């Protein structure tokens, strides 16, 4: 079989220019996919020159170390307070904070809601893996009912620890919030939808419309004690019913 094939050489996308490789994420973790999406969106929107990444304390901080943009990180929880002030004194910079679900829903909940109440012109990216990834998979505000973790050894019980928290839905009704959405990256089509959400959220900051938050569901194979493939099934079968995908708020112009 000697069929002539003409190959068109076309650059589909460049390898991300990461500062930190390898990144130290576990095999099967979705954070790498989310960092990649973030890098692509910053590149496509031409934001890398003005972007400042506020990382947290936890696995999400690895993103702040990886991307080749100005970054600060380390403290666990107060990312939205840090980002709020930095954006206020540098209105021409593009400021976003990346947080774990524990930072947003537990230790940094007050800062998250307060920044949303003030309508800070920043973007918050939350990674929801239903547990505390870096410290060993303990109960997070987003842990599913019945889920076994080191601090819920018999499974999360609503009687003692309540119900999984919905961050974007919590702040969506606040008038300072311009955009609130949840996506997932466990399938190719969802990755594209998530990328679009990220772009829309960033657009709101550029238009100075107020606070934006996008949450991404993310696998944590190490702490879920599941294979990479079973993690995808877990997200599909267990997480999607608890954490609805979609946009909960998307305003076109600033509210008075």
């Amino acid at each position, binding site marked *: 079989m000697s069929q002539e094939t003409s190959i068109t050489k076309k650059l589909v996308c460049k390898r991300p220019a990461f*500062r930190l490789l390898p990144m130290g994420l576990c095999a099967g973790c979705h954070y790498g996919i989310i960092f990649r999406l973030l890098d692509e969106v910053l590149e496509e929107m031409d934001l*890398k*020159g*003005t*972007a*400042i990444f*506020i990382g947290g*304390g936890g696995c999400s*901080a690895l993103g*702040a*170390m990886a991307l*080749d*943009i*100005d*970054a*600060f*990180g*380390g*403290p666990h929880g*107060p990312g939205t*307070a*840090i*980002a*709020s*002030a*930095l954006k*206020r*004194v*540098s209105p*021409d*910079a*593009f400021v976003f904070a990346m947080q774990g679900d524990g930072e947003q829903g537990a230790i940094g909940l*007050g*800062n998250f809601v*307060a920044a949303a109440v003030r309508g800070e012109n920043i973007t918050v990216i939350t990674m929801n893996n239903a547990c505390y990834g870096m410290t060993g998979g303990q109960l997070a505000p987003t842990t599913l009912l019945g889920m076994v973790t080191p601090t819920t050894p018999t499974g999360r019980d609503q009687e003692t620890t309540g119900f999984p928290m919905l961050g974007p839905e919590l702040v969506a009704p606040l008038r300072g919030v311009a955009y609130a959405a949840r996506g997932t990256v466990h399938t190719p089509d969802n990755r594209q939808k998530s990328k679009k959400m990220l772009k829309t959220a960033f657009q709101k900051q550029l238009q100075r419309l107020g606070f934006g938050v996008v949450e991404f569901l993310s696998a944590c194979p190490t702490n879920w004690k599941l294979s990479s493939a079973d993690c995808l099934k877990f997200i599909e079968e267990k997480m999607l019913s608890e954490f609805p995908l979609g946009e909960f708020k998307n305003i076109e112009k600033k509210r008075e």
Partner: protein
Amino acid sequence: MTERILSTGNDAVARAAICAGCKNYFAYPITPQSEIAHYMARELPKIGGCFLQSEGEYAAAYMLLGAALSGKRVMTSTSSPGIALMQEPLSMIVTAEIPTVVVDTQRLGPGTGTGGQQGQTDYSFVTRGVYGGIHYPVLAPYSVSEIFEFVQLAFHIADKYRILTMVLTDFVLGRMTEYLKLKTFDFGPLPEKEWALKGKALKGGRSGILFTVTGLMLDITGFFRQQEEKANRIIDSETRYETYKVEDADLLIVSYGYTARASKGAVNMARAQGIKAGLFRPITLWPFPKEPLKREALKAGKVLVVEDSPGGLVEDVELSVQGKAPVHFLGIQARHTARPEGLIFPERILQEVRELL
């Protein structure tokens, strides 16, 4: 011509910050220093600055950090319980070496205390550095004009060494009204802030990263060695103190803040009676003027520490004197009344001096 105005100590903090080019202020209201926030809320918008009332002191200090990442001068102010809430962010600031200024207008007591009245009970808490074993400079003014000067100096020290610098005042100093000369102090040249986060387009395309995780540096002993070298430079160049009538003194009073003011009065009253008392006033509480204090203490032979607290400064004095001279203590029990409005007056200090000589 420099303008001479009447100002409270708290207003002097705000005026000084603006004179030093600080247009960014983040804080949460707390007595007895909320007037600083009132001033900033009124004045900063007029000069294109940023005033933001935070959701608490923890957030205020993280906002201080966040805004300072830009390389701009920033300040927060609070009072004792607020300083407690700021401990984590202050340690992060020191670790990432971000220049910032914090003003602590002390209120009395542990817990809620008196709800915001006079006292000097934060000494040990603010002079021992942050958790993690790193110190930061603490300046202790004793008049409104010194508050005005030291807040400006704090910005200079912060920028010079890339460090958090604290100005420690108290209720009496914050609420008292005195003359001050409105002027911008020039403390000398400062390094460029090449580390500032502005987006890499403004820095020739080179991205920068500031992290608070010492473990990421992979060279832990190197990190602490560098911190120690920095601390030594601060100790060598920034240790400040003032002496008053110590040349022939038979007794050395050691005091800071409002009680140093009362002590100076006591020295004058003693001298009028032929009693040779002198005053040693540490201006930097860290770095503490250990050697000069030891020298003066040995010369006088007797030391009396005066502070409106159960004892904080007295520990640093004992460490400095190293048992080479007796150190006496006049603390919160010397107040003129047991009620919250109690103060240590010069007359009471003089009485102690007479008993010791």
